[in-house]
């Protein structure tokens, strides 16, 4: 006679500690788990709702400036080293963890227009309306220390005077050069008092400059002549000029895709370009309702943050036409500068209301140390929402955002205007000879010319 007994090896079921979780054995036989899709759909729905519940992106405001924040810089070497400059010429070094200013650097007579930190993380470079470029040395490790540095205000270690006001400054990601923009583009060496090179193409003011993180010799500028110009230090010449219908306020290179960059345009959109194919944008990122003032890529290269004149900060996917997230507060005014933190977890925005604000890059992300189970749970929830995001209910809940009334109205108005234009064009097309009214894609529509 055969007797069946349940046999369990003691080793498999004995926990090392009493806190350890009991091992759970699952029968994966699908027959035992019917309706799995319905189950998961419900879970996805719950997950997306929970995301809404936990969406608390605002971390805090760094207040201390007495004028609008005009420029910000993050340290490529240290995470907690964050600097902002204001319109009154003040530069503040922030201890982000404690949300207070460690140091205030005084020296600029006019507005600070550009801030950047050298590739080794030791020097701070600033430029401003007072026609000077100042170099400051950053405290070694004091940035993260708890006690605020209240010693006598530091003086710049170098001050280079130019002929014209500087509008922007950026340092190479590797190397010792930095570039300033103003009446022309100047290339400086940290150790020299005169620019080692300067570029001009056209006579309009250059308003922003940004180096390519992956290719340290390549950089691009945007000018008030609505142009975007690419440069290569090795070639010693500008490479190409792209003229758009409206001005580009800022440019950010994708740190993971060396040839792609995104520019914040005055026409409320951001445009991503491949520097090799400037005939058409790769993607048009629409959602802002006023000029986009600044753009910065996440170090993961998968998303970027934009600050706009419409008092909102938005986060876009690198290839998404619409924003993933929109941040705003009642008190936040025009946003002049935005930055992604070095670890891609936080977003900082400097605005007209003299505050620098710290946001989470993912609104519902749980911060702090997570247990592995928690991590898995979050990952599972995210995977579920990702999978079912196309289903109507989940799509609706996931996409819903509360917007300030003016922004909402402006968006609506823009939509109306856009629709009206489209309708007009359609009618025009319908009443013209076929093919006579072309159908230019938006990616090409806003490009005026590509100059060699």
């Amino acid at each position, binding site marked *: 006679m055969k007797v069946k007994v349940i046999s369990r090896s003691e080793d498999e079921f004995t926990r090392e500690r009493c806190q350890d979780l009991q091992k759970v054995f699952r029968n994966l036989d699908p*027959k035992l788990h019917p*309706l*799995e899709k*319905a189950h998961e759909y419900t879970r996805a729905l719950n997950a997306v709702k929970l995301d809404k519940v936990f969406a608390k992106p605002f971390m805090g405001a760094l207040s201390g400036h007495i004028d609008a924040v005009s420029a910000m810089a993050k340290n*490529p070497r240290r995470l907690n080293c964050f600097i902002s400059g204001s319109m009154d010429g003040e530069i503040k070094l922030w201890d982000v963890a404690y949300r207070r200013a460690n140091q205030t650097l005084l020296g600029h007579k006019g507005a600070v227009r550009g801030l950047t930190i050298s590739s080794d993380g030791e020097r701070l470079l600033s430029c401003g309306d007072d026609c000077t470029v100042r170099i400051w040395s950053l405290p070694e490790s004091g940035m993260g220390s708890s006690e605020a540095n209240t010693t006598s205000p530091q003086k710049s270690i170098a001050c280079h005077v130019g002929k014209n006001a500087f509008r922007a400054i950026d340092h190479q990601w590797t190397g010792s050069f930095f570039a300033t923009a103003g009446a022309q583009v100047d290339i400086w060496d940290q150790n020299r008092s005169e620019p080692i090179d300067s570029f001009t193409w056209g006579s309009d003011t250059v308003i922003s400059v940004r180096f390519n993180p*992956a290719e340290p010799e390549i950089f691009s500028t945007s000018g008030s002549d609505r142009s975007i110009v690419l440069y290569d230090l*090795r*070639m010693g010449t500008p490479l190409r000029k792209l003229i758009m219908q409206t001005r580009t306020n800022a440019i950010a290179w994708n740190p993971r895709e060396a040839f792609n960059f995104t520019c914040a345009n005055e026409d409320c959109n951001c445009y991503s370009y491949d520097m090799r194919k400037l005939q058409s944008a790769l993607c048009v990122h629409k959602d802002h309702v006023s000029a986009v003032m600044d753009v910065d890529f996440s170090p993961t290269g998968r998303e970027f943050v934009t600050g706009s004149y419409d008092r909102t900060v938005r986060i876009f996917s690198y290839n998404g036409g619409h924003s993933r997230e929109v941040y705003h507060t009642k008190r936040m005014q025009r946003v002049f500068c935005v930055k992604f933190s070095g670890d891609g977890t936080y977003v900082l925005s400097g605005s007209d209301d003299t505050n620098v604000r710290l946001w989470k890059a993912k609104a519902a992300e749980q911060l702090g140390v997570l247990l592995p189970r928690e991590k898995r749970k979050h*990952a599972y929830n995210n995977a579920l929402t990702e999978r079912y995001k196309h*289903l109507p209910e989940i799509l609706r809940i996931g996409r819903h955002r509360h917007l300030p009334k003016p922004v909402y109205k402006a968006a609506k108005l823009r939509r109306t205007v856009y629709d009206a234009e489209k309708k007009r064009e359609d009618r025009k097309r319908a009443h013209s000879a076929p093919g006579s009214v072309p159908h230019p894609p938006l990616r090409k529509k806003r490009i005026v010319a590509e100059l060699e």
Partner: protein
Amino acid sequence: MADHLKRQSHKKNKVSKKPGKNIKKERKKGPRLPVSLYRELHLENHHRYPIQKESECEEQEYEGLQLRNSDLPSDIYEYEENQAPEDSLKNHRFDSIHSFEYELPSNFEDEEIDEGAADGEERIGQDKSSKQHRLFSYGKKRKATTMQRSDDDVDEEISSSQSEDLDGFEGDEFNEGSNDEDDVKEKSWEQEISDPEHDTNIEAKDGDEDVERHRKTVEAVHMLHKKEPKGMRRKRAGILSEAYPESEFNLNPHGGDTMQQITVEDLISPLQNTPGFGSLRKRVQQLEKKGSVVDAPLPKALQDRLNRKAGYEKTSDEISKWQDIVKRNREAPTLVFTQRPDLTAASTAELAAKFVPTTNLEKEVMELLQENGLVESTTEANTALGHNKLTMDEVKERREKLAKLRSMLSYHEAKAKRMKKIKSKTYHRLLQNSRKGNTKGEDLIDPETLKEAAIKAEFKRAQERMTLKHKNTSKWAKRIIKRGIKAKEDGSREALADQLRTHAALTRKIHAIDDATTSEESSGEEDSETDSKNGLSSPSKPKTRILAKAKIETLKLLEGNAEAEIPTSGLFSLPFMTRAIEKKRKQAQSEAFAVLEELEQLENDDAHIDQMNFNLEKENEKPASYGRLAFGDMAKSIPNLKEEEPDMLVEGNTSDEAEGEDVQDIPEFKKKAFSSRRRKPKDNAKINPSGVELQTCEKPVTDAVWKDGCNDLIDFNASVEQGHEVDNNVPKAPDVEGPNVPAQANPWLYGPVQGIEGTFTKEKNTIKQDTSGPLVVSASLEVLTSPQVRRKRKKKKAKTQKSITPDKGQDDKENERHLSSNDSEEEENQDVKEPRFQLSAENESQLELIQRAFAGDDVEADFQQMKVEALNDEVPLGESVLSLPGWGQWTDVQKKKGPPQWILKQQEELRQGREQALSKRKDFKMNHVMISEKMDKKFAKFMAPQLPFPFTSREIYEKSTRMPLGREFNTDQGFRDLIRPAVLKDAGVIIDPIKYKMSETRTGDSLGRKQEILKKAKSFRSEDKRKRSNTTNSFVSNKEMRQNTVQKI
């Protein structure tokens, strides 16, 4: 501007060539040198050119001085050796000019630049002037002001400011570039010439010694060869332009005086006496002749544009190196930016070695340790370990050894693989035997022992042969046998058998390996192979053996057929299917019987041996196989068809078909039934007896037999039409229609064929009938002919009056192409002879059969009913009051009256509404199609309203969401893989921008491809498993499937 300069220079050249005529222009004024200097120069010239007159020398010297710093090229100033004295005298005329003050020419205009000239040209002009200016300013140690010369106004300003220092000389410089008219030009030239003179003069004071030195070196070079420099003919460059290097340091451009320039000729003249000098000089001359004029530089704007263009292209190219990396990262399922802990952590010893005491306590401890020698011991051990190094030789040796081992391993692996691949059973048998032998005699490796063993074995064998010891000749054996077999116990019986076996082994002839070891495992295939080989090798062997074999095969087949069981499940278990299978089996049996009969006949017949041998040669190439006979296409399609519906299985009595004529002569008729195609019998045609070739692959034995018969017949009546003869030959029974002996007339097969052959209208009818049925039936028959066939038919005007013309020419062509691609080879290469059939009587039987096969299976009606049900389901009539019990039937009166008007009206409305709704349906007019238009509102939330962006088809999207993600449905690893986020990063870890590595096999970002593949494979596997185990588990998937599906029957 450049052209202008060129012209100018040409002019100057011309002028300089004719010094006699235009000497006026050529006179140069130099600055006043100090008398002492003159004297010295004078003296020197005397030394050098004693023949020359003083004045000339002076003149030349002046020139030299003047021109050393001037920007005019050297060739303007030519040294003419035989200058007429009057010419030289003429020169004096210009000496009278004493004023070196610059005076503007009367018609001078400051800005004479062509307004139409390009921007670039203007810039060149500016450049030039700026250069010249620099030239001077250097001498005067003035700061360069070239930067500010953006326009002429500035120029003027500067020049005026400088004129204070330079006595107004510079003013001219700026005008020089803009001079256009000839007279102005001349004047400016003069002035220009005089200017540098003045300037250099000043400089000469400082650098007297330099000049001297230079002169000396030049002289030294000249003195290298004896020849006087007078005799030298110098080539003049054809152009005057800004030909000197543009540098403010170059104050002594090559356009100096004639004497002080070292030319190529100067350098090569010392080689005059050396061999090969002539060719060298020739080459130099050629070079000079060919030396092309360098074009003037392009306008700056254009230059810049070109530069930018080139730069952009270069940079674009260069940055494209990222393309692959970017692509990979974009496609990677996960980007990993987390910091991986350095798992190559140091050992404790390593840590201890690195440890440096910092605090006081640590220092104290360290001291104590050192005092006790504890620290040193560890370090000693470390050092000992460190010293314990392998020498180079040892390492080499080790590596070689390892390499050898590795290679051996791989060699053996490869060998084993190769051996494993060999399919021959004989080979494996032999191999096994040899291995057995090896294992037996493993210890007998050396030849001595081997030999001994061989001798021993031989001895034993000999002994056995002589004594027959093992042939049950022993007493024991005899006794047992005597006692009777039945009485034998098991053990003794075995022992007896054993003995007999040993005997056999010992007396066996050694070479007879094949025969002895052929065991049961050897397949019939092999047997037939060897048999056929034997047959080939020894044609004298009796045919009877083959025939016998064939017989056995047939019998086997018969048995097998009888035993084969009918499937009890699946499609084949359906009643009509089983019936069909049964029928077929019977048919096959009857065929087999027929073949058997024939075989017996042939066994008696010995007259065909020669022909058979001839035929066998071809057939033996292919092994025989079990199963039904099949020819050509059929042979291919049968294995597939077996899995398909059996009623579609078209099977022929192939022996019937295998007779025919040359394909070239005979049009062929093809029929396609679903996937299978088969050959149709042909029209009558002449037989080419010599061309009789049969190529059938299956069952060669029977074929051979059959062919034998054919050939016989051909021999007998060669002139007779083949078809009839074949019919005769094959044991056919046209009158017998019973299920037992359909023989070649397989109604399944040849019903329609018959129609084609005999009465075509019938065929058409059948087709029509078919098409009138549901889709299944209509698709079952597709008859077509090739145009060739038609042609041939018309030509021959044989029995068949009509050829089948397919409905559409297009279809015909298409099918033809399709068929030809499949069949052409066989048709062309294989000359298949097919017999003619006369089976007109059996057409009905075929139809009958079909009808019988589908007797209880009214597909059409079933479908209609299904559709009606579905429609009722999807479009219900709606509830009318009448359907409620009791309504309108309260009283007898009501009952008599029937339902009231309003109820009837309502019903009518409902009916009409339903009809309307039905008429709107897609499948309203499609009799054989049912399209579900059911919309499940509850299920709508599980459906995406439109296909999401990255997906291209609905199927792919559904597939992507089919696999559940949760833990309940997946293994732990599968779960982790499925939920891994697209970007993995840690808070607080700085993510650096991407860095380019040459070997980007594995970027830090993407999990390796391998992992990706593994993941995919895993998910597919589990999905597959789910599918297999669970076909109807979830309402969701079922509903989904039901949704919007188009049912087609």
